[in-house]
């Protein structure tokens, strides 16, 4: 397959934990077909699973960006082993591979210069770096193929204006609540998937249903919540999100029973004739779990909802004839 000229518009940002990586491997056909470009920030010091995921994505010519200087998790202060893996495994030989590099207020121009000199296809994750004019000039002069992914609340409009092309905006549509029971039943998620072109952008990005804040592992939840996104054609195709919560919100016992409480609310909404939730493969699996009264574990539930988000955006962005 010739991948030259293939352009992604959606750049889902993943913290590379177990279920995220499994999801990427399982959904590589969908990712490739939709020209999605997952961005992976590795967060565990054992990189085997990341390696396996990259190999499988690149083999099927799925575009992917791997961040070599993670800002969260085990590798927060030293990403050298990620860079070593990228160099040893020669991922850069594939057109589909982007070297991801986070630039923030502590990053120096020289560091960026070195990255642009070393690699030919780089994705800069703008996360608080401020010298827009200078960097833009350096990028133009570098001859390196640079994609700019801006984390919205760390990249002011005037800063972004300095950059000429390949601009992606990451907007975190997920409004994280401290406690699961605080989530409203349904709320707005984002409209960036409709407006990114008008905003002069080449693509958009989000943290799916996880939120931008990195959490190592959730403790036992008193309220079990299933998050599910949908596009509302009656409201200009804006994206919204349902938070289906268990009836019981106290104590940590019986997560399985609480999951079924939340799931029955999901099933009620999905089964309505005029339901706006797309009947994705993930939703079908939720229906099946309800049928079997089976609780697959909270990590799996999150994975299913992420899958649903990918499937929903893939459907929305699919060229319609």
């Amino acid at each position, binding site marked *: 397959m010739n991948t030259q000229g293939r352009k992604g518009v959606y750049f889902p940002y993943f913290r590379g934990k177990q279920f995220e990586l499994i999801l990427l491997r399982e959904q590589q056909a969908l990712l490739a077909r939709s020209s999605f470009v997952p961005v992976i920030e590795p967060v565990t010091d054992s990189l085997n699973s990341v390696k396996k995921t990259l190999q499988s994505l690149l083999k099927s010519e799925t575009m992917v960006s791997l961040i070599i200087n993670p800002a969260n998790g085990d590798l927060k202060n030293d990403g050298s082993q990620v860079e070593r893996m990228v160099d040893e495994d020669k991922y850069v030989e594939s057109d589909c591979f982007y070297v991801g590099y986070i630039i923030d207020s502590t990053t120096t121009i020289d560091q960026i210069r070195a990255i642009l000199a070393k690699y030919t296809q780089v994705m800069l994750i703008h996360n608080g770096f401020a010298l827009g004019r200078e960097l833009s000039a350096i990028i133009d002069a570098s001859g390196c193929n640079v994609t700019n992914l801006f984390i919205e609340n760390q990249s002011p409009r005037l800063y972004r204006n300095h950059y000429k092309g390949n601009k992606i905006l990451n907007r975190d549509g997920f409004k994280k609540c401290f406690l699961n029971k605080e989530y409203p039943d349904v709320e707005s998620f984002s409209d960036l998937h409709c407006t990114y072109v008008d905003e002069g952008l080449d693509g958009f990005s989000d943290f799916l249903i996880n939120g931008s804040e990195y959490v190592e592992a959730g403790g036992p939840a008193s309220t079990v919540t299933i998050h599910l996104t949908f596009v509302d054609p009656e409201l200009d195709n804006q994206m919204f999100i349902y938070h289906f919560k268990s009836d019981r919100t106290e*104590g940590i*016992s*019986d997560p*399985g029973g609480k*999951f*079924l409480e939340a799931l029955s609310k999901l099933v009620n909404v999905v089964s309505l004739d005029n339901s706006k939730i797309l009947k994705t493969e993930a939703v079908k699996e939720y229906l099946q779990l309800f049928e*079997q*009264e*089976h609780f697959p574990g909270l990590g799996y539930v999150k994975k299913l909802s992420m899958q649903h988000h990918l499937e929903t955006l893939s459907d929305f962005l699919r060229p319609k004839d």
Partner: protein
Amino acid sequence: MTYRHSMTMQKQAFHQSINSQLVSRLFSSRIQNELMIHGRSRSALQYIKESNILSEVSLQLPLRDFFDSAYCYLKRNYRNEYVYKNVLAQKIVLGIHSLTTSTMLSELRAGTSKADVVVLNGTSTVYEIKSELDSFARLASQIASYQKVFDKVVVITSEERIAELKTLVPPSVGIDVLTKRYQIHTERGPVSSPEKLDQAMIFDTLRKEEYREILTKHFGSIPAVPNGRAYSVYKRLFCQLSPSVAHDEMVRILKRRTDAQLLSMYKAQLPTSLLASLFLIKFTQTQMRNFIAVLDREAEVALT
């Protein structure tokens, strides 16, 4: 101010400059886990240096003696929860009872509370630790939860707080005191209150494989149910047991959470200050062997 007076002041100021809280962190499960798994602990070294404990204890001691000396400092100056747990481990479990018939568990769930220490022998006794650093704020609700799960409830506290404590707890609750001389003195014994036991609360203290085993024993077999509903079905079944049977089965099965053989093997090899770690930390035989090897090395070398 006389010269002599000012010297005393200086000495006091010097002494106060030891950060007791940092010293106490040396006894956290985290540090001991690090030593067991990695055979060293940089954070321990950092706490040691920042706490200024080196003005009293030398890093050139074997690590086991270093821990004992640091513990001695805590015993005199900062009796936190760990000190209470360690003295309980030492005097109750390794003293009166033998490890084959009794054991101790920590941080066991009981309703919305977590029991500091539970001693299991023929029956169950929960110890709620109220050191001079703890507040009595949650005591009433803790006691109410504990009485639903355990046979006897004891609050253990410092000498200064006995009087206040007596006004707060019902007569069935025992009161132990950790005296200034570091002895456990029983101010009054606990009275068992089996009528308060609650099968549903006991059920929630157990793990899945534990309650499944109890149910199989009493009902022959257990119904196959989808796992989303398993909890409520099994809990309903468990509640058919009488409260005292439910409690006794809990004691029997909780004892298995610790390995008596392993504990007996290692209790003599640990310094007194770390006896509680037998019960507070989950370890494998290899990890414990490594831990003991590390304890015999010079502290500075061992930690770096």
